[in-house]
């Protein structure tokens, strides 16, 4: 655990960048510092690896004051990833990644083997090993930056706006990749961003900071969205926090209807049996079980339903893994007002109406405060 204990940073020009900050950064989790530009996030992060020395207060790692350790030993035990990746342009990708193992005295062959392994882990094509940084895209460079930080398998990873300079699609890919890597490696990650969506998406816990370097709230993202500490946090979270909060409720609890579903080769009897007064439409699936579209029962030709004449089904949601937010989104966007649920294989597992999703949201909200108390 990294304990930040009433730390203040005053720059020589008098700027108070961080003001009596105290918080405990849990092990093997992603702790995100988020806040408007200039609120002291970078200063806080850089005090953890002593790139900046605090003016007051202490930082302890597993109870040990970080000032007690030689500074380069401390830094080599922490991966460090920065916004523009900061790759060494004169070194090949593989040698960039092998930097810290080489610093630690590994021989070249072993360091390169390790670097090659990490390229795979961060989703880089091994063919890029002998390239130079200028030959890579921004997103690829950032992956190299992450691989380089992980190379010596440090327990801690410090990341300062690592994905801020890439476009939104690449950023989403990098975020997903980071979450996947974290599932495998379980590092203690301290992550700085000014993007609250990013914070909510990747943070196990989120520290919201306000200008002047003070902590506004430190909580898991779901709690932040449910229960912002004050008007500043609420404002910073943005207008649609209610919808975003639904990301934290699984869709798995939604009751699915399986009756109004027929295969494309359904007989007249099957169509008649499946049509019910509560559901004005039937969902037609292909012979592979994947959704084709909706049709009113009387328009469906028994034995050979024409997929071209069906109403689009919109994006289906994965019942077992996605959230109520995804289910609601599918229901809202569906022309019929019904969302289609599928399994991991893409086969239809049932359908659910907007009303049912809304009821599930109400009961999730009613249950949530109790859950959160239990979790604490």
């Amino acid at each position: 655990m990294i304990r930040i204990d009433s730390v203040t940073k005053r720059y020589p020009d008098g700027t108070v960048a961080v003001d009596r900050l105290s918080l405990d950064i849990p092990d093997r989790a992603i702790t995100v510092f988020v806040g408007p530009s200039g609120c002291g996030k970078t200063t806080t992060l850089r005090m953890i690896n002593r790139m900046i020395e605090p003016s007051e207060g202490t930082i302890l790692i597993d109870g040990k004051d970080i000032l007690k350790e030689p500074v380069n030993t401390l830094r080599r035990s922490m991966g460090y990833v920065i916004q523009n990746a900061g790759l060494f342009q004169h070194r090949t990708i593989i040698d960039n990644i092998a930097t810290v193992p080489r610093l630690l005295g590994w021989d070249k062959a072993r360091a390169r083997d390790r670097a090659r392994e990490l390229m795979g882990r961060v989703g880089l094509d091994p063919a890029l090993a002998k390239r130079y940084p200028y030959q890579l895209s921004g997103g690829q460079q950032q992956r190299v930056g992450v691989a380089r930080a992980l190379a010596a398998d440090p327990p801690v990873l410090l990341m300062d706006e690592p994905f801020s300079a890439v476009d939104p699609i690449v950023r989403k890919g990098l975020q997903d990749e980071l979450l996947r890597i974290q599932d495998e490696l379980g590092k203690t990650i301290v992550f700085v961003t000014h993007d609250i969506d990013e914070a909510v998406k990747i943070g196990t816990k989120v520290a919201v900071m306000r200008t002047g370097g003070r902590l506004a709230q430190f909580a898991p993202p779901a709690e932040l969205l449910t229960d912002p500490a004050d008007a500043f946090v609420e404002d910073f979270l943005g207008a649609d926090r209610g919808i975003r909060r639904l990301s934290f409720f699984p869709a798995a609890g939604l009751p699915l209807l399986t009756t109004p579903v027929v295969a494309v080769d359904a007989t007249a009897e099957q169509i008649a049996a499946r049509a019910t007064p509560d559901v004005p439409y039937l969902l037609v699936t292909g012979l592979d079980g994947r959704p084709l579209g909706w049709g009113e029962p009387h328009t469906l030709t028994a034995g050979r339903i024409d997929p071209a004449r069906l109403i689009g089904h919109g994006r289906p949601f994965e019942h077992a893994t996605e959230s109520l937010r995804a289910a609601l989104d599918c229901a809202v966007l569906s022309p019929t007002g019904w969302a289609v649920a599928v399994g991991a294989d893409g086969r239809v597992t049932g359908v659910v109406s907007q009303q049912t999703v809304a009821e599930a949201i109400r009961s999730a909200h009613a249950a949530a405060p109790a859950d959160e108390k239990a979790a604490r």
Partner: protein
Amino acid sequence: MNVLHFIQQFFSDSAHWHGYDGIPTRLREHVQYSLIALGIAAAIGLPVGLVTGHTGRGGNSLALIATAARALPSFGLLVLMFVLLGLGHLPVMIPLVVLAVPPILVTTYEAMRSVDPSPVDAARGMGMAESRILFHVELPVALPLILSGLRSAAIQIVSTATIAAYVSLGGLGRYIVDGLYQRNYEKVVGGASLVAVLALVTLGFFWAVARLTVSPGVRRGH
């Protein structure tokens, strides 16, 4: 009589190819003075430029010294040194070194300052020692510019080393000084063209050094 004719005359005269006043001897002397002067200038300019560039401190005083040094006329300095120190190598070396230090020093400083700060930040953050950052992170990227500073210094030295002849030393300047004295223009032009060729060889040498030492990852950016 044109210049080409002088050149042809000079190089075809077999007397110019032997003995203590032959082309091989004068060339060797010239190269020797130049190398010594460049070596001394680099030994002063490189470390100071690297360290001030790395730390970012002392840039202003450095620029001031360099400008002052550039304002000194080499020939005037030579005469002064000759008056103070008499004949010998030292009065020649001092003006040459004074001439060569500013381009090396200033270019090295600028080269180090122009290195992208984020790899340096990353290197420091991953626990690299400052000396290693200097030599393994900044220097390889600054190298093309540093070499260009050394190259201009070398070319200036090669062309200015002719002044050695004024204080009774050898080198290619001998042909120019003696030729002028003897009104032997063949010799003057021959000496001057040898200096020009040597300058071109110097250019080629630095080009080759850059090809061999600058990483392909850096070369592209310049």
